[in-house]
C-alpha cells in the first residue's frame, strides 16, 4: 500500500524496495517466467481476437450497467438472494456489518476479493468484534502480517518461504519447516477448522450474469467453494463492473483471464452460483445469501468517454506482470490497493487524488501493459491523462509549466538549447559526455553519463548535407525530434547518407520542433497540443512519407497526435498516415537489398525501443535491415523490455531507471556482440551513458549509423 506524501518520500521508499534482494529476485524470476507461460497458454488461439471480444462484451455491459443491475436483481431475488447497491465503500461495509449483526454471526471466512480490499472491509468488521479470516493462502499470509496485497493474483509474491515459515511458527506456536509443500499443508489444516466454525462466508465475484442472476467465481485453491458452502450466510461483494449480460459474455472473459493472469488454461475451479442454495447449517436448509454491488465512482466513470474503458478491467494482474517498474519495486510501491498500471488509475478514482499523485508519475510509458491487457485498455494513455488532470486540479509545478511555455515557442526553445551548449562546457571536459554533474543532481543521477549538446545542430548542417537526387523514388521529410537535432545530429546525417544512396529525396522542414511527448510525460497536455499543431503545419509539404529515426517521436506523431487533435481532424489523419520509422521505410517501402552494403558480419545485438516494437508494431524490420546491412544479429534476452529511459521518467525516478538499465546492459553483454544497436535516440542516451559508466565493452549506436558504416 503506497502512502508516501511527497515524491521525494516516494523515491525513498522505492530505494528501499530496490534494495530488497529477495523481492528483486522474486520479481525477476516472475517477470521472465510469466511471458513464457502466457504464450504457452494462448498458443492455440488468436489472442488479439479473444481480447477484442472481451473488450466488446465489457463495453456493451458498461454502457448499460443500470439495466443489467435491474435485471440481475430481479432474477436473483426471485431466486432467494438479497441484492444490495452500495454507493461507496463505507456503505458496502455497513451493509455487511448489518447482515452479520442481523444473523448473529461471529466468525467470518473470506475468499479473495479485491473489492473487499478496496472498501477495507476487514477493518470495519473487526470493529464489531467479528473474527475475519482470509482463506486464500496468499491473502491469509498477508492478513497475518497486517499487510496489503502486492499483486492482484499473487498477493504474497513479495514474501519468501522463510518469512512464511516464521509467520506460521508464530501462529501455530510450533516450529515450522521452510518446505513449501509442508507449509501449504499447515495452512490446509489450520484453515479447515475455520471454515467449519464460521457462520458467514464472504466472497467476491468475477462475473455477475444478469440474465440468470448468477455469480461466477474463479479460484485455484477451492477456498471459495468452502466459503460459499459451509457457513450459513454468504455475502458476495462485487464492483458493478462485474455485471455482464449473459453466460456467453462470461465465458468469453473466462477464456482469457486465467491464461493472461497465470498462463493457466482455466483456474482449477470455476463456481457458478444461481440462487440461495441448500445449506444444512442454515434455518430451513437454505443459505442466507446477499450480493452487494459496489459503485464507488464506477457509475460516473462509465459515463466518461475516455475513462469508461477502465471498467473493462478483469483484474488479471497482467499489467503488473510486464511492467518494468513493478518488476523493480514490487506491488507495494506500484499501487495503493489495486496494483500495476490499472492500480495507478484506480487509485485516483477509488482512493482519491492524494493517494494517486505520486503513483501516476511512476509510469515509464513503455506500453508493455497496453499490449498485454486482457481487455485492451489503453493504460499508458489513461495514466498520462490522469497525471495531466491532477496537475490541472492542483496547479502545475513551475518547472513543468515553464517547460510547456518554452516548448510551445520553437525559436525560444531552440535558442535555449543553443545557449545550453555554451553553458555545459565546464561540465564536459571536451568529451561528448557531460563528465561532471552539477552537485544537486550528482547523487542519484550518476548511473549514466549524460551526452553533451552537439557543437552544431542538424538543422544548421542540413543544407550542406542534403543529397542531390535525380529522379527520386520517393520524396520524404525527415522529422528529427529534439534529441537527434541537438544532441545526436550524426544519426540523422547517417540516415541522410543511406537514404540518399537509395534514391530518396529528403527535406528537413525547419519549422519542426520537439514532438511534444516530454510535455505529455510531464502532464502538460495543453502545451503538447499546441506543439502537435505546429509540427503538423511544419510538415505540410507534399511528401510521400515522414521518416523519423526516433521511435518515441514516431509513435507520438502517429498515435497521440490524432488523440490530442481529434480523430476526425483530416489534416492530422493525413499527417499521421505518412509517419514511418526509418527501418520500416528501408525494408517495407524501399525494399533495400544487401548489394549496397559491405558484408562484414560483425556481431551486433539489438534493443527494441518500446515505442518501436509496441508503439509502432515494428519488430522484424530492424532485424532484417541489420542482416541486409551486413551484420550478424544476435538476439538478446528480453529484447523488447524497456531500457529504463522513459524521457523525464529517468530524471524523476533515477533509482528505478538505473536498475532497469543494468538488466538491459547485462542482457546485451551476454550476446557477446560488439555493438548494441537500437532505433531511438532516447534509448541511446540511456544505453550509451550506462555502457560508458558500467564499462560494458560494447558500442551503442543507432541503426542508421551502422548502416552508413557499411554503405559501399
Amino acid at each position: 500500500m503506497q502512502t508516501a506524501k511527497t515524491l521525494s518520500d516516494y523515491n525513498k521508499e522505492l530505494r528501499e524496495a530496490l534494495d530488497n534482494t529477495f523481492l528483486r529476485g522474486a520479481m525477476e524470476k516472475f517477470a521472465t517466467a510469466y511471458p513464457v507461460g502466457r504464450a504457452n497458454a494462448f498458443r492455440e488461439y488468436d489472442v488479439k481476437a479473444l481480447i477484442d471480444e472481451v473488450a466488446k462484451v465489457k463495453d456493451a455491459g458498461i454502457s448499460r450497467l443500470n439495466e443489467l443491475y435491474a435485471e440481475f436483481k430481479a432474477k436473483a431475488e426471485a431466486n432467494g438472494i438479497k441484492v444490495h447497491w452500495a454507493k461507496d465503500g463505507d456503505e458496502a461495509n455497513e451493509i455487511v456489518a448489518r447482515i452479520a449483526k442481523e444473523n448473529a454471526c461471529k466468525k467470518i471466512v473470506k475468499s479473495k476479493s479485491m473489492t473487499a480490499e478496496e472498501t477495507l472491509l476487514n477493518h470495519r468488521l473487526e470493529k464489531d468484534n467479528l473474527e475475519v479470516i482470509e482463506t486464500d493462502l496468499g491473502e491469509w499470509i498477508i492478513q497475518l502480517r497486517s499487510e496489503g496485497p502486492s499483486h492482484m493474483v499473487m498477493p504474497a509474491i513479495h514474501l519468501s518461504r522463510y518469512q512464511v515459515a516464521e509467520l506460521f511458527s508464530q501462529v501455530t506456536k510450533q516450529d515450522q519447516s521452510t518446505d513449501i509443500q509442508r507449509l501449504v499443508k499447515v495452512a490446509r489444516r489450520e484453515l479447515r477448522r475455520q471454515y467449519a466454525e464460521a457462520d458467514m462466508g464472504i466472497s467476491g465475484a468475477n462475473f455477475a450474469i444478469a440474465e440468470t442472476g448468477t455469480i461466477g467465481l474463479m479460484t485455484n485453491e477451492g477456498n471459495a467453494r468452502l466459503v460459499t458452502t459451509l457457513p450459513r450466510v454468504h455475502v458476495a461483494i462485487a464492483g458493478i463492473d462485474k455485471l455482464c449480460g449473459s453466460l456467453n459474455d462470461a465465458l468469453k472473459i473466462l477464456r482469457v483471464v486465467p491464461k493472461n493472469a497465470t498462463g493457466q488454461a482455466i483456474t482449477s475451479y470455476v463456481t457458478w452460483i444461481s440462487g440461495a442454495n441448500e445449506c444444512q447449517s442454515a434455518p430451513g436448509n437454505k443459505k442466507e445469501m446477499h450480493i452487494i454491488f459496489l459503485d464507488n465512482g464506477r457509475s460516473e466513470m462509465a459515463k466518461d468517454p475516455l475513462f469508461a474503458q477502465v471498467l473493462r478491467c478483469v483484474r488479471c494482474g497482467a499489467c503488473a506482470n510486464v511492467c518494468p517498474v513493478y518488476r523493480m519495486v514490487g506491488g507495494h510501491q506500484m499501487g495503493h490497493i489495486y496494483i500495476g498500471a490499472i492500480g495507478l488509475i484506480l487509485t485516483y478514482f477509488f482512493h482519491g487524488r492524494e493517494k494517486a499523485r505520486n503513483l501516476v508519475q511512476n509510469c515509464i510509458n513503455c506500453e508493455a501493459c497496453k499490449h498485454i491487457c486482457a481487455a485492451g485498455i489503453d493504460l499508458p494513455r489513461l495514466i498520462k491523462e490522469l497525471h495531466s488532470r491532477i496537475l490541472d486540479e492542483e496547479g502545475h509545478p513551475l518547472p513543468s509549466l515553464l517547460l510547456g511555455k518554452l516548448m510551445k515557442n520553437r525559436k525560444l526553445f531552440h535558442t535555449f538549447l543553443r545557449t545550453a551548449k555554451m553553458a555545459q562546457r565546464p561540465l564536459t571536459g571536451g568529451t561528448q559526455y557531460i563528465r561532471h554533474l552539477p552537485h544537486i543532481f550528482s547523487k542519484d543521477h550518476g548511473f549514466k553519463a549524460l551526452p553533451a549538446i552537439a557543437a552544431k545542430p542538424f538543422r544548421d548542417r542540413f543544407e550542406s548535407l542534403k543529397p542531390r537526387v535525380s529522379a527520386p523514388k520517393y520524396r520524404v521529410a525527415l522529422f528529427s525530434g529534439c534529441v537527434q537535432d541537438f544532441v545526436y545530429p550524426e544519426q540523422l546525417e547517417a540516415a541522410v547518407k543511406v537514404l540518399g544512396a537509395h534514391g530518396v529525396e529528403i527535406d528537413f522542414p525547419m519549422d519542426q520542433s520537439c514532438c511534444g511527448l516530454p510535455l505529455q510525460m510531464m502532464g502538460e497536455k495543453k502545451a503538447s497540443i499546441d506543439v502537435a499543431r505546429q509540427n503538423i503545419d511544419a510538415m505540410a509539404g507534399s511528401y510521400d512519407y515522414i521518416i523519423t529515426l526516433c521511435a518515441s517521436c514516431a509513435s507520438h506523431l502517429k498515435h497521440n497526435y490524432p488523440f490530442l487533435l481529434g480523430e476526425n481532424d483530416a489534416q492530422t489523419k493525413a499527417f499521421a498516415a505518412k509517419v514511418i520509422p526509418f527501418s520500416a521505410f528501408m525494408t517495407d517501402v524501399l525494399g533495400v537489398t544487401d548489394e549496397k552494403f559491405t558484408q562484414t558480419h560483425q556481431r551486433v545485438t539489438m534493443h527494441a525501443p518500446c515505442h518501436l516494437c509496441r508503439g509502432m508494431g515494428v519488430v522484424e524490420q530492424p532485424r532484417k535491415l541489420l542482416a541486409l546491412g551486413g551484420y550478424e544479429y544476435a538476439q538478446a534476452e528480453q529484447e523488447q523490455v524497456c531500457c529504463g529511459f522513459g524521457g523525464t521518467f529517468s530524471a524523476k525516478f533515477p533509482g528505478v531507471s538505473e536498475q532497469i538499465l543494468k538488466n538491459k546492459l547485462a542482457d546485451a553483454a551476454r550476446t557477446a556482440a560488439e555493438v548494441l544497436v537500437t532505433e531511438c535516440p532516447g534509448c541511446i542516451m540511456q544505453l550509451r551513458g550506462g555502457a560508458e559508466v558500467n564499462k560494458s565493452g560494447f558500442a551503442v549506436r543507432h541503426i542508421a549509423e551502422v548502416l552508413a558504416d557499411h554503405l559501399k
Partner: protein
Amino acid sequence: MGPTPEVLEKFRKKAELVSAIVSEVDSMAQAIAYTVDLCSQKEACQLLMSGCEESLSDKGRDLCELKQFGKIIAAPALNDADLAELVKQAASREISVIKDGMRSHLAGIDIGFTVADYGIGETGSLVIDSSSEELRLATMVSEIHVAVIPKSRIRATTEDLYDELKGFQSRKPNYLAFVTGASRTADIERVLALGVHGPLELHILILEDK
C-alpha cells in the same frame, strides 16, 4: 454421439497437464473397482489426514483428532445399483461408504466418488452440478476426488455446452462447478503445491457408454 478422437485426446491431455490422473473404464463396476483399489492402497493417508503430520496449533489439531473412522468413500449422488456395488466392493476391503452426513466429516474423507455431468475438451474440465450440499462437500473435503465422465458427454468447448450450462443456471437454485485438476496454489514463492484446500488428487475415469 460421442466426442471425436481429437476432442477426447485433447480432454485427456489438458486434464493431465494440470496433474489429473486420467484412465478409461468400460463399466461402472470397473470404475468402482478402480476407486476401491485406490482407497485400499491409500494406506498412509488413512492413518493421518493430509496436513495432520505437520506441527499444528492446538486448535488446528482438534479436527485431526475428530477422525476416528476407518477409510471412507463418500458417494452422495450415486444411483442405487451403483451404490450397492460400491458398498459390496468396499466392504471386502474394510472401507465404509457414506452418501450423506458430510458435515460430520469436515476433517476429511479418503475419496469422494462422483459422476460428472459433462467434460470440456478445450481445458480438460469437468462440469459437475453441485447443487446438493453433500455432493459439493464430497468433492471438496475428500483427499482424492474420483470422477467418472461418460465418454458421450465430453464436448469440445464450453460453447458446445451452452444450452446445457444455461439450463443448469436457470434452475432455482443451482450450484455448478467446473473442476480442472486438483486444488492448487502457487502463493508461496510461486512454487506449485497441490491440495491446499480441496482434493490433493483428481482421478478422471472416462466411461465407455456407447
